[in-house]
């Protein structure tokens, strides 16, 4: 029998109020000293991604978040009890440090998206710069050059927005992970570690940022378990067996 792992907490944590996990199986803790991992039994070797299973994972982690700040596992973590116990014992110190780091906090996320008009303006500018009568080769190179210049400009703008956002949030957050990716629409994704007692200040800072930049579209969500703050170095060798 394999175990589906949801998250790690300190041992004293009570079982989640959402007691059933994947496939309606009961969730329970596997304990190794000061650490407990909440799991449920699974017969399957691979977990199918569907809406129900993703929401079930989040429901179990979320119900533990109501009473403490757990270290959540990524979706699809299926292990034997021996593997899990070995993991808890061998990573004991690092896991306790992570728990101390996120203690009393939750993760709040912000995604910033360009408003449509900004992209349309850029497209119109590109079009206006097009010179009639160019050869196919010249036109190709010109478009390529414009594309590269446009991408660089977008990246610079996105970096400026990231710096501005961090300054807006200031002391309302304990830590932040920002991923700047000026794709077609997304400017950046920011995940903030926010003290539970400071959620009102955080919300006020986000509201103020929204008001300051009406040209940007904000998507704010949370509270989440600290998914973005738990990875331990050298443990990214995950294997995605997609079948």
């Amino acid at each position: 029998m394999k175990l589906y792992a949801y998250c790690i907490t300190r041992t004293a944590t009570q079982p989640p109020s959402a007691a059933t996990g994947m496939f309606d199986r009961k969730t329970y803790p596997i304990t190794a000293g000061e650490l407990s991992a909440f799991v449920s039994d699974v017969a399957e070797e691979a977990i199918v991604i569907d809406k129900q299973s993703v929401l079930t994972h989040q429901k179990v982690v979320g119900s533990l978040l109501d009473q403490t700040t757990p270290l959540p596992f990524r979706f699809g973590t299926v292990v034997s009890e021996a593997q899990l116990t070995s993991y808890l014992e061998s990573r004991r110190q690092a896991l306790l440090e992570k728990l101390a780091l996120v203690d009393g906090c939750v993760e709040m996320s912000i995604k910033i998206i360009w408003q449509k008009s900004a992209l349309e303006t850029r497209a119109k500018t590109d079009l206006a710069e097009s010179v009639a009568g160019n050869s196919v080769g010249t036109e190709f190179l010109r478009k390529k050059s414009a594309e590269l210049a446009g991408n660089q400009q977008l990246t610079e703008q996105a970096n400026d927005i990231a710096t501005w956002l961090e300054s807006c949030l200031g002391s309302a957050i304990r830590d932040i992970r920002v991923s700047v990716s000026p794709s077609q629409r997304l400017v950046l994704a920011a995940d903030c570690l926010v003290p539970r007692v400071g959620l009102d200040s955080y919300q006020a800072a986000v509201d103020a940022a929204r008001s300051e930049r009406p040209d940007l579209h904000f998507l704010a969500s949370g509270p989440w378990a600290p998914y973005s703050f738990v990875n331990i170095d050298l443990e990214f060798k995950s294997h995605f067996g997609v079948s």
Partner: protein
Amino acid sequence: MSSPFEQVLISSDVEQLEEADLSLLETLDHVLNKGLVIAGEITISVADVDLIFLGLNVLVSSVEKANEVVRARAARQLEKESSNR
């Protein structure tokens, strides 16, 4: 696996998504992309090799398929516009 947001933004207007859709997208973004990893112990399978639709046509895989959706949508839009003229 890239962020579901990255994928859905290719083919959708965020403004047109319902709050429940965004909530699911955010859940996917956190649960599938982040969190503790025990080396070698994540094994997931998908219902379709290239593409996963999770209720609201959220693409979490395959840019190729996403591009097909975009092209099909653009073609439908053109047809609609020409029939309105």
